[in-house]
């Protein structure tokens, strides 16, 4: 298992998403899947940067490993306010541009590009697990 801890600031977005993407690459995921992993990583990390710590600063803890079935498992943890992204309703992707609401699109994309997405609140932490199958 590899692990990275960075302050939840936008300037660390590249570092954090590169860490995850490089992990996928080391496991042999192809370019298409790597771009999907990069997208999912960014969406989740940006959410934490923007919303997890409204009253101050905090950290993002990222780790990944390969499951026995070959899948790439990413765990992203913050100690911010409780937030279950799975509780968000899907945006209306059939709505026209004029009618579009702004929220929810990022997490929706994560759901579309990853094979599993799980959330738990544990010991004051938001623990989000993403899985990409080989």
């Amino acid at each position, binding site marked *: 298992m590899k692990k990275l801890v960075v302050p939840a600031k936008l300037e660390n977005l590249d570092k954090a998403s590169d860490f995850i993407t490089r992990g996928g690459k080391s496991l042999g995921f192809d370019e298409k899947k790597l771009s999907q992993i990069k997208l999912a990583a960014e969406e989740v990390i940006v959410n934490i*940067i923007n919303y997890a710590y409204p009253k101050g600063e905090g950290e993002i803890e990222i780790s990944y490993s390969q499951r026995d079935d070959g899948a790439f498992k990413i765990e992203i943890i913050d100690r911010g306010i409780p937030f279950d992204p799975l509780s968000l309703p899907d945006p209306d992707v059939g709505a026209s*541009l004029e009618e579009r609401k702004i929220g929810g699109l990022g997490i929706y994309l994560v759901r579309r590009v990853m094979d599993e997405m799980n959330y738990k609140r544990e010991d004051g932490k938001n623990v989000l697990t993403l899985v990409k199958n080989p």
Partner: protein
Amino acid sequence: MEPKFTVTFSEGVAKIELSGRLDATNAPLLQEELKKLIGQDVKRLVFFAKDLEYISSAGLRVIIFAKQKIGVDAQVYLVGAGENVLNVIKMSGLDNFMVITDSYSE
């Protein structure tokens, strides 16, 4: 960070040249740039995406913003987008509301 886009406007057509990536790190900069067009009579919003390698929801929101705040009656074009970008556009359903082409002529 170097801006990865240019915005020009003439005769009702706003042209937005994108390159590299459009994500949470630079989408707000593009949005600020596009705000300058508010109040203009924009008939077309043309996003040139041939050199755009990556877009995230932050980038999609700028396209939605442009349509809603700048050109409610404008037609949105997406020109030359590669597979990665197009896949994200399609997942979000925005492809139904824009003209997607390989090339653009006046």
